[in-house]
């Protein structure tokens, strides 16, 4: 069996693949892994988003870091690689709160939940919808995206890998 080249998308990174290959985000905690595909052009991408919004007073060094810059940047890179905006479909996973045990009450903000909302809003603003999503909860996730088959899978520490959706389906 041929082993497909696997590209790990690190924090704040955006990766684009044409043709075949596997994109993955390993061990997503509060971060979001956002997958996109133009099946006809065979162009796919994945963004590993860390935070909801870029800071107003600081230059954005890596657009993939933030939802409000990462979503448009992912789309732009896909278009540059030959994708057409009106054929793009999306799926995402992540946004968990892995520090579930606490001595007191959780006083800090839930970044995972905010990331989830921010990515949804950024997509909505551009009139995109999600084909599949699995966010929130307390479990870290690994997200894999087989570009050729369109299959997106999620696995966690305690659950076997399972299909989230198929972006070609």
């Amino acid at each position, binding site marked *: 069996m041929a082993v497909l080249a696997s590209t790990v998308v690190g924090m704040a990174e955006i990766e684009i693949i044409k043709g075949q290959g596997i994109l993955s985000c390993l061990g997503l905690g509060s971060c979001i892994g956002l997958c996109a595909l133009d099946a006809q052009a065979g162009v796919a991408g994945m963004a590993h988003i860390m935070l909801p919004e870029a800071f107003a007073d600081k230059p954005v*060094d890596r657009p993939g870091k933030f939802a409000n810059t990462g979503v448009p940047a992912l789309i732009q890179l896909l278009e540059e690689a030959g994708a057409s905006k009106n054929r793009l479909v999306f799926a995402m996973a992540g946004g968990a709160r892995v520090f579930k045990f606490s001595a007191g009450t959780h006083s800090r903000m839930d970044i995972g939940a905010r990331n989830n909302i921010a990515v949804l809003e950024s997509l909505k603003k551009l009139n995109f919808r999600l084909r599949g999503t699995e966010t929130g909860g307390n479990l*870290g996730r690994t997200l894999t995206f087989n570009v050729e088959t369109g299959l997106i899978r999620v696995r966690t520490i305690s659950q076997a890998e399972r299909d989230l959706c198929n972006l070609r389906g």
Partner: protein
Amino acid sequence: MGVEESLGLDLMQQSAIREIANIGLGNATTSLATMTGRFFNMTVPFVESVRLEALPALLGGFEQLTVGIYMKVEGDVPGYMGFLMTWESAQSLWQSLLGQCPQTLEDIDPLASSTLLEIGNIINSGFLVAIGDMTNLELRSTPPEMGADMAGSILSSIVTEASMGDFTALSIRTEIFDESHSFEGFFVYIPSNGGLQKLFETLGIATPIAEEAA
């Protein structure tokens, strides 16, 4: 990327950080030994700066089951502190402290979680006390939080919170282990840029840190 490259730390500053880690680790191992009745060693405190992205590999990979206890530090040197250990190390601690240990994540009951939260508290506080003693700066910790999950998701969640502010991508890796090496852990410290500067100023070894996009 070493400390020097990322921060422009000079030799004095590197050795100050090393000394703080040395004392902090000493405090932590002493408290840990008192609490558990076990003997702990620490590595000659060779403090190194590891990119946080590199830590999952040390814990056995991004998807390796890891227990992390972290807390936010407030005061003169705000930042984040975390202590990470493999699941097997956590089980070893539970076994010696409680006489039993959870076999799966679902088995972590309130007693088990509060026990490890306290251990994390002790280790992290050892470092806080060391900094406070050396500098007279005021540092306060917030209640610790704990997670047991993939190494990547534990670490990235810490990094994400730190990356919301102006924090130095500095992490200090140290090791604490027992005689049979059934317990081993890593300590991560992420101070704010301003706080680190203040720390060096207090010690009289500050140099202007060049403005640099993180």
